[in-house]
């Protein structure tokens, strides 16, 4: 039984997948299901680049085994733009100049998205805390936090 059949909801669509038992959620999403927004930064859960939302909370997909999302809902950045229309977070990240090399961006946006799902009007400190598991080397975080504030106030 080293391949496992799992059914879960990916970006608002129910799917059934057969996946190797030793595959990480990151690899299943990125390679098997073509969700290229999910990126590997460190493989140790220490940088947040691979962050996705599972059952409404953020997780580092490099530390989750793919079969563990059986019966769950999973959201990647691809799930945020419905029919080509951008989520207000995606818009605000562009508006605030919060994207440089872009590697941390999917994880950052999903961390903010998950925060809004629990708390639609977070304070600056609450925003910083929610994003503190996502490392960025380019921006110094300032415009990222500003982008989340802009989205919050829209």
């Amino acid at each position, binding site marked *: 039984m080293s391949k496992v059949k799992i059914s879960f909801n990916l970006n608002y669509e129910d799917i059934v997948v057969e996946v190797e038992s030793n595959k*990480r959620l990151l690899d299943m999403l990125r390679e098997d299901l073509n969700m290229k927004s999910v990126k590997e930064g460190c493989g140790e859960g220490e940088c947040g680049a691979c962050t996705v939302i599972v059952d409404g909370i953020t997780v580092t997909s490099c530390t989750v085994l793919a079969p563990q999302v059986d019966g769950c809902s999973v959201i990647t950045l691809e799930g945020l733009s419905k029919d080509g229309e951008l989520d207000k977070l995606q818009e605000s990240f562009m508006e605030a100049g919060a994207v440089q090399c872009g590697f941390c961006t999917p994880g950052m946006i999903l961390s903010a998205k998950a925060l809004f799902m629990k708390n639609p009007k977070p304070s600056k400190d609450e925003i910083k805390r929610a994003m503190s*598991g996502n490392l960025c080397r380019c921006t110094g975080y300032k415009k990222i936090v500003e982008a989340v504030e802009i989205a919050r106030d829209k």
Partner: protein
Amino acid sequence: MKRYDYFSPKTVSEALDILENANNDTHIIAGGTDIVLDINKGRIEPDEIVNINKLQELKYVKCEDGLIKLGSTMTFSEIESDELLNKKAKVLVVACREIGSTQIRNLGTVGGNVVNSSSAADSVAALIALDASVVLKSKNEERTMKLIDFYDNGKSKIRKNELLTEIFFDEPNQNTATAFTKLGRRKALAIVVMSMGALLEKDESNICTKAQFVLGAVSRHPSRLYEIENQIIGQEINRDNLYELIDNMSTTIYKTIVEGSPGSLRRLNSAKYKSKSIKGIAKTTFESILSDLEIK
């Protein structure tokens, strides 16, 4: 990487049935933040993985028979936001709140933290300050032991066919305050440099009736400071008396680290630093307790 068999039991009873046939390469996964790394780095090569993340039976916090009981798959995020624990066990809430990052706290479980036996396990330090016990279940047996007795030089005493199902501790009364202070190298995603957990109980005249102090990341496992506890028990809880304990804590830390690895220059430097920086950690911890006990 070796392919392994994957099980995802829906009940504790099902899990225990599976574990009854466990061998040395059977491993349990809950949040996965430790074990997935172990697998990927080749530190372990499992034959079987048993996923306990779907066991709703292990997700609870309740007060029963004068005990506060936690199910072992409670995540750090869930502990952080639990009303009862926020009221009664600040030491555990603060410890869990400062672990890793939001993502790690969403995944990591208190049971996993306990069994993984890392010297950096913040929730373990807090639980030992609460003098907690663990419940280990197998198909035909149930064992309970104090968390402070659960470790043996780097390894936990859990058997291969056992599941850690519950952690419990005495419900602190309203004359008790607990606190936790963590020293890390940065404000998030910080592995502990040193931590301190404390529980102090007083009577109506502010005399200390119970003291439980723990240091994290000083010895291989979080350690109780029994001698220092005895110094304050029976004394009035006030700022002077508490601060007086700090010199002894400093000496204890220095001795513990140096004696733990004699001749190691790196450990000597660590001992020098930690025995000094405890001053700041202890002060913060004591101030929190004084404030909660409403002692000026």
